[in-house]
């Protein structure tokens, strides 16, 4: 309704203005810049932008996560496990199953999962931020009383590039939602730590798209039509198991052989190049839960891909990464050795997800009991 009505008003305004004929000179700078500045200030203060992107998975994921944190349920809970991740978690991590393992071992727990296919770190940061912002004061109080663990996915593709997948879904509601202006300085700091000055030229497509999206958000381009078609978000499931196998998946050798082969040195130098931005990212993720997190865990999935498997091993061996789970020192890699448990070389099928989730649950039980958490 707004579009035709405000549009008509604009038509009248545009038709009603004129300048004296033969003015000859161009206007002074402030006639262009002052309205621009005023617009930026007023529009960004008055219109909540992320709400206008209902086609992003964020609202649905946050909704299901917030609904799980019922204070009455939390009253009997000792541990809340928050899990974030991309498609490997979305397909391979069954939070309900992990929760069952913990409860069976006498640890009253609640697993809250925020994962979605194709979610890069920028998007996952947005999920967590919106989740915390959506919590009511009583829920926050309840979370302060329990022990909250943040479990974060480790996967080579997303750890190489904080905006992995961005160009595939650039300018969609999904990417525009996390490119909300308040997030932009942080994302640019990640990119500044990742890329050397010369790399910025090579990455001009990414940068120009990113700048375009930021300007799009900054000036609220297309805001009214989006907000007019806004529908209430439906719950988005954070775990969707794969029930079939990808037709292109044809692994060679065994999962053991991939994991047992020596590390490729070409890969390890590339892994190390990403440590600087990852350190900043980890701190930013922790800051979202400031004062709430008791402990932080990282988890990775075994993989048929040699670079991914090498990355998991390399990551596990990094100093300070003792809270890292990839199934090493368990029978998980042997259990997942059958290609029938996999969708493709990275993603599990349902049976594989069950095995992984059980093992992760046991790992958490062991961690809690051995470290008296």
């Amino acid at each position, binding site marked *: 309704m707004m*579009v035709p009505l405000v549009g008509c008003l604009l038509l009248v305004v545009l038709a009603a203005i004129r300048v004296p004929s*033969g*003015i000859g000179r161009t206007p002074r700078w402030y006639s*262009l810049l002052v309205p621009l500045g005023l617009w930026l200030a007023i529009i960004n203060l008055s219109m909540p932008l992320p709400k206008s992107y209902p086609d992003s998975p964020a609202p649905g994921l946050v909704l299901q996560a917030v609904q799980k944190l019922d204070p009455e349920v939390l009253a009997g809970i000792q541990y809340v496990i928050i899990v974030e991740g991309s498609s490997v978690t979305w397909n391979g991590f069954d939070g309900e199953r992990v929760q069952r393992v913990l409860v069976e071992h006498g640890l009253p727990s609640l697993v809250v999962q925020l994962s979605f296919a194709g979610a890069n770190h920028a998007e996952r940061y947005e999920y967590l931020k919106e989740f915390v912002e959506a919590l009511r004061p009583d829920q926050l109080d309840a979370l302060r009383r329990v022990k909250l663990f943040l479990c974060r996915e480790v996967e080579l593709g997303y750890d190489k590039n904080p905006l992995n997948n961005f160009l595939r879904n650039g300018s969609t509601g999904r990417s525009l939602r996390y490119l909300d202006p308040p997030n932009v300085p942080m994302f640019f700091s990640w990119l500044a730590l990742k890329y050397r000055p010369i790399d910025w030229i090579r990455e001009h497509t990414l940068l120009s798209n990113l700048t375009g999206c930021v300007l799009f958000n900054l000036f609220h381009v297309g805001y009214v*039509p989006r907000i007019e078609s806004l529908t209430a978000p439906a719950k988005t499931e954070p775990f969707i198991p794969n029930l079939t196998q990808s037709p292109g998946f044809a692994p060679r050798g065994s999962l053991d052989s991939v994991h047992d082969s020596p590390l490729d040195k070409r890969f390890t130098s590339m892994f190390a190049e990403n440590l600087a931005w990852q350190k900043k990212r980890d701190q930013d993720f922790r800051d979202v839960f400031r004062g709430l997190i008791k402990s932080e865990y990282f988890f990775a999935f075994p993989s048929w891909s040699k670079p991914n498997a090498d990355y998991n091993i390399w990551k596990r061996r990094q100093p300070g990464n003792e809270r890292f789970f990839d199934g090493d020192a368990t029978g998980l890699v042997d259990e997942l050795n059958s290609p029938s448990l996999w969708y493709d070389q990275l993603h599990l099928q349902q049976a594989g997800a069950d095995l992984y989730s059980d093992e992760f649950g046991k790992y958490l039980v062991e961690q809690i009991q051995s470290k008296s958490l």
Partner: protein
Amino acid sequence: MLFNSGSFFCFLLLVLPTYWLLPSNFLRKVLLVGASFVFYAWWDWRFLGLLSFVILSVFFGARFVLYERRKGNRRQALIYLWCCLGVELAVLGFFKYFNFFEANLVLALQGLGIHVATSSLLFQVLLPIGISFYTFHAITLAVDTFRGNVDREVSLLDVALYIAFFPQLVAGPIVRATVFLPQIEKKRTFDGEDLFVALQSIGFGFLYKVVFADAIAPFVDSVFKAPAQFSWIYLLAGGLGFYCQIYFDFNGYSLIAIGVSRLFGYRLPDNFNFPYCATSLTTFWHRWHISLSTWLRDYLYIPLGGNRGTLLRQLRNLMCTMLLGGLWHGASWNFVLWGGMHGAVLCAEKVIRIGQPRKEYREFGLSIGLVFGWLVTQIIVFLLWIPFRASNFQDTLNFIGNIFLLKSGSPGAEHLTGMIPWLLLVLPVVCDTFVVRSLRAWREKPALNPELAFAILVLAALCVALLAKTGLRPFIYFQF
């Protein structure tokens, strides 16, 4: 490179300041020709050769015509003119109509019992974007040279700029050589009024295109995609939607083209003059796509005989012009039908002598006859947009038939509330036709201080961005 794309914005940001910084008119023209070729290559660089061929052929054709005319050898000049027109029409005919004639030839042969598989005769020809417009520019230059309206040796650079000037290259307005060439003779000077008028025109254009036309387009597309599925009320709303969409889309494009040209200091003619307030189809064509309708009048209707001769002869000229005008829009029987029906109504108006210019000035007086004339004209225009937009002849018949037969179907009238936001988009047409028209005509409106006027323009542009339907949707007239 669409006017409503980020790449065009960057392109303009690069070309415009460079243009004004260049010291000589020659360098500026070189820059504009180069930029126009880049602009055209953005769609398909392979057709740059065709564009260059059209430029070269009309350059030499016009030179020969001028040479013979100056010698007083009119007959020889006429031969050169026809050679030049033959080349341009052959280019247009081959690239635009080859597939159409081939398909119809196959059908005709099949009708005669000779079975030939469709599209097996020769090959499929790709339609180069803007070909209808730049070949018309070429024809204009050749004919105006023959008529003596262009009476100087036009340099190759000037011909290239006239044919390929990027704001009007792909969808007009069709500019006369006599209007454009004098403007590029002298170096343009930067003027605040030009800048204001340009930005105002671009503002209107974007408002029409990305706010109004693009907002209604998804609804129109869904109705025209499968008209058989919809009840009469939806078909009516879809048709009304297209009635609004095509006006805003094409007028929006024209205004942006006019505004962008003005940023470089060049003035292009207006292409629209509130056509939906016309009280007869004759006046509608004085107001809709003016650059084409006047072109058809001056380069087709008048050479055919125009208003000379008997009434029957005049009607024949009118029908030929409108049929060819319809076919110019696209190689399809739907466009022939559209042009033919317009021609038929224009002939009827000519016979009963309505829509004469003398009545034009009082068309919004409180005369019942004029209100009735307006209503009938707009209903005819609305109905004739249906074959223009429908995919084929059968869809056109079903569409119009189902509206008149009040066909029920799904979704039916019970879902009418869902259409209200779409129907509200008719409101801008009403506002444009009646309020904006009055404001434009208001000569005593106070002139604002330039700073205030530009500040309002910036705010209006930002509001347009706020209301814009996101996602790139090409202009309808790009297909022609």
